[in-house]
C-alpha cells in the first residue's frame, strides 16, 4: 500500500473557491469491512461519542457557556483508529503525541473521559488540560505523553523530532506521532520535520500525519498550494508516504496500522496524508454550523454497517442518544463549577518554584 517511489502528477489546475476536487483516485481506500465485528462496533461507538461531545461543546458556545469552540467533528473516522493504535503511557517507551486541535476523538479512543473537554470549553479551574487557561481542544496530558496542543499552527512539527530522537536512542517500539492540517504544511516547520526526521543514519521513528480537509479557515487548498498530494512532500527525503481516505475508519485503521508497524519496527519516518471532512466549519468564529456539502464519515460508516447487517438504524440512534444525554448532563454539572482565581496567573511560571509576581 505504501508508495515510496512514483510518478508525480501535475499540480491542481486552477483555484476553485468552493467545494472539493474528487480525490478518490489519489487515496488508498478500502471497500471491505475487513475488521472484526467487535472492533467495527467499538470504532463506531467511539466515533459517535466523539461527535456528541463536539456537538455539546458547540451547544455550550452557542448558549454562552464558553468563548470559543474549535474541534474535530468530521475527523472521527481517522482519529478513532489512530487512538486505538497508540501505545499509551508515559516516557520514551510509549508513543509521544504532538496533536492539533481537532483530536478529541483520538483522546476518547485512548480512553479519556469527555468531562475534561467540557471543563476546558467552560474554562473552569478544574480543566485538566490547562486549568481554564486555554481554548477548547487544546489538550495536554503528561501521563499519556500528550504534549500541549499549540495554537500556533505547525510548531508541533518542529518539536516532534526531539521526542523521536530520544525514542530512537531509547530503543523499543515507542514512536512519535505528529498531526496537523493541510494549510499548515505551507509553514516551514513542516519541511523542518521532514529534514530532521530523515538525517542519513539518524532516521527518526516518527509518524508524520497531515489531515487534509482542503481548507485553511476560509481559504481552499487549491487556491494556495500547488501540491496535489501532500504525502509527495516526503518523497525527496526518501521517506515512505501514502495518502489515505480518512473518512473511512476501516481503511484508516488498516493503513495506520501498517504505517505504525513500519515506524515501530524500522525506526524510520512515515508520512501519511489523510483526506478528511470539516463538518462544522473552521471554528465558532465561522458559525460552527453543520456543513452539508461535506461527507459525513459517521453516516457513511453507519450505512455500511447496516448493509453488512452489523448495526441497525435503531441501534445507531440509541448510541447517539445515549452519548448526547450523557454529555448534556455533564455540561449541566460543569456549568456550576468555579473559574480559576485571578491570583492563579502566577502559578506554574517556573517549575519547582511557588507562583509570585516578580515585581511585587
Amino acid at each position: 500500500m505504501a508508495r515510496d517511489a512514483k510518478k508525480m502528477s501535475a499540480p491542481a489546475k486552477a483555484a476553485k473557491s468552493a467545494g472539493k476536487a474528487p480525490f478518490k483516485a489519489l487515496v488508498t481506500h478500502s471497500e471491505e469491512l475487513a475488521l472484526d465485528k467487535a472492533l467495527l462496533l467499538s470504532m463506531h461507538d467511539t466515533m459517535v461519542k466523539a461527535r456528541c461531545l463536539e456537538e455539546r461543546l458547540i451547544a455550550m458556545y452557542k448558549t454562552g457557556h464558553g468563548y470559543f469552540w474549535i474541534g474535530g467533528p468530521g475527523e472521527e473516522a481517522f482519529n478513532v483508529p489512530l487512538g486505538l493504535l497508540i501505545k499509551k503511557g508515559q516516557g520514551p517507551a510509549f508513543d509521544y503525541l504532538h496533536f492539533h486541535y481537532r483530536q478529541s476523538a483520538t483522546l476518547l479512543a485512548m480512553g479519556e473521559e469527555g468531562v475534561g473537554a467540557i471543563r476546558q470549553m467552560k474554562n473552569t479551574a478544574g480543566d485538566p488540560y490547562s486549568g481554564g487557561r486555554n481554548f477548547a481542544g487544546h489538550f495536554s496530558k503528561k501521563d499519556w505523553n500528550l504534549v500541549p496542543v499549540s495554537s500556533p499552527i505547525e510548531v508541533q512539527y518542529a518539536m516532534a523530532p526531539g521526542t523521536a530522537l530520544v525514542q530512537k536512542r531509547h530503543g523499543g517500539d515507542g514512536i512519535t506521532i505528529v498531526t496537523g492540517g493541510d494549510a499548515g504544511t505551507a509553514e516551514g516547520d513542516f519541511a523542518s520535520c521532514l529534514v530532521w526526521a530523515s538525517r542519513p543514519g539518524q532516521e527518526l521513528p516518527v509518524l508524520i500525519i497531515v489531515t487534509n480537509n482542503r481548507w485553511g479557515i476560509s481559504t481552499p487548498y487549491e487556491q494556495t498550494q500547488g501540491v496535489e498530494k501532500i504525502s509527495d512532500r516526503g518523497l525527496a527525503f526518501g521517506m515512505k508516504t501514502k495518502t489515505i481516505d480518512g473518512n473511512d475508519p476501516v481503511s484508516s485503521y488498516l493503513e495506520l496500522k501498517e504505517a505504525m508497524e513500519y515506524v515501530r519496527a524500522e525506526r524510520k519516518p512515515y508520512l501519511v496524508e489523510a483526506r478528511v471532512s470539516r463538518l462544522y466549519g473552521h471554528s465558532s468564529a465561522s458559525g460552527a454550523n453543520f456543513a452539508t456539502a461535506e461527507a459525513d464519515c459517521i453516516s457513511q460508516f453507519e450505512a455500511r454497517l447496516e448493509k453488512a447487517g452489523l448495526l441497525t438504524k435503531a441501534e445507531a440512534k440509541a448510541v447517539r442518544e445515549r452519548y448526547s444525554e450523557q454529555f448534556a448532563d455533564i455540561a449541566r454539572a460543569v456549568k456550576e463549577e468555579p473559574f480559576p482565581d485571578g491570583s492563579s496567573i502566577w502559578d506554574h511560571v517556573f517549575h519547582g518554584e511557588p507562583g509570585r509576581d516578580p515585581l511585587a
Partner: protein
Amino acid sequence: MANMAQAVRMALHFAEENLGVTDIFGEDVGMPLGGVFTCTQGLKTTWNSPLDERGIIGTAMGIAMAGGKPVAEIQFCDYIYNTIDLLKLAGATHWSSNGQWNLPMVVMTPVGSGIRGSIYHSHSVDATATHIAGWKIVMPSTPLDAYGLLLSACKETNPVMFLIPKALMRIRGTELIPGEPTEDKALSRLIDAPLGDRTKWAAQWPTLEDASIPLGKAKTVRAGSQLTVVSYGRTLPLCAHAADAVAADGLDVEVIDLRTLWPYDWEAIKASVEKTGRVLFVNEDTEVTNFGEHLVRRTVDELFFKLLAPPKLLAGKFVPGIGLADPLEAASVPQQSDIEQAMRALIAVQP
C-alpha cells in the same frame, strides 16, 4: 459612524485607488471572508496567501523591492514571532544598503486582549516592535485615527507596522470619516459583505477624502493639570474613562493618545509632564522590557528634576500568556479600576 474594521477597510480602499497600494494579502484576507475581522472585505487588490507568516513578510518585502506597495496582514500578532528576523531585515535594508533600497510596505495585525482570546489571540507586540530599528509603529484607538494613520502609513516609503487593537475593532467612532454617510446603518449596507453567498456581492464605496494624520503626532484627548497619562490602543479609552471617573473626586488628569509609537511625540509628552509633574504610562504588553519603560527612562533622563512623583508604568503582568477564564484575563492586563487606582496613588504622592 464607522467602527475600526470599517475605517481600516475604507482607508485601504482609498489607498488602492489613490496611493498606489498594489497588494493587500495574508491568510483569509481575500474574499469570501475578507479577513477574520472583516477589515479587507470587498477590496480590489486582496488575495489569500498560503498559511505561512514568513512567506507573507518575505513576499511583502519582495513586492516592495520591485516597486509594488503591499499591505500584508498577519492574522493575529500572536503569530508574528517566527518572522522577527525578517522584520529586522526589512528595518535594516535601507541602512545596510547605505541608502540604495527602501521598502515601502505596511504590515497590519490585530493586537491585544479584550475578546477572550486566550493565550494565543491576546498578545501585544508593541515591546517587540519598538525594539526593531527602521520601522514606524502605529496604533490607533479610534476609527477616524485608524483611517487617517493608515493613509499616512500607505504613503510612507519606509516599513510601517499598523497595530489594530482588537478590543476596539467593533466599537463605533464618535467622529465621521470624511465621505462616510451620516445615516446610521447606511455605511454597513454599502461596505459590509452580506452573510451567506458573497460571490455576487461588491462593495459600494462612498467617496472618501484624504484625511491623513501625520505619523509621530500624539493627540491630547483630555486636558488636565495634575497628572499626565500616556497610553495607546485598548487602554486609551480606559484611561479616558478613568480620568472622567476620578474627576468626580476633583482630580484633574490629562490623557494623551500616543497613536504613533515610533517615532513618538516626545514634545507632547514633555510639554504635558512639565505642566503636571506627574506621569503614568499605560499599555498592556507584559511589563518587563516594555516600551513604557523606555518612556519612563526618557522621562527621568530629561525631566527628572521637574517631577513631583516617580513616573509610573501600568502594564501587563509578566506571565507567559493571558488565560481564557475571565478572572485570569482581568488579572493579567490593566483594567479601568487598575488605572483609576494608579491615578489616585500618583496624585497622592507628595514630593
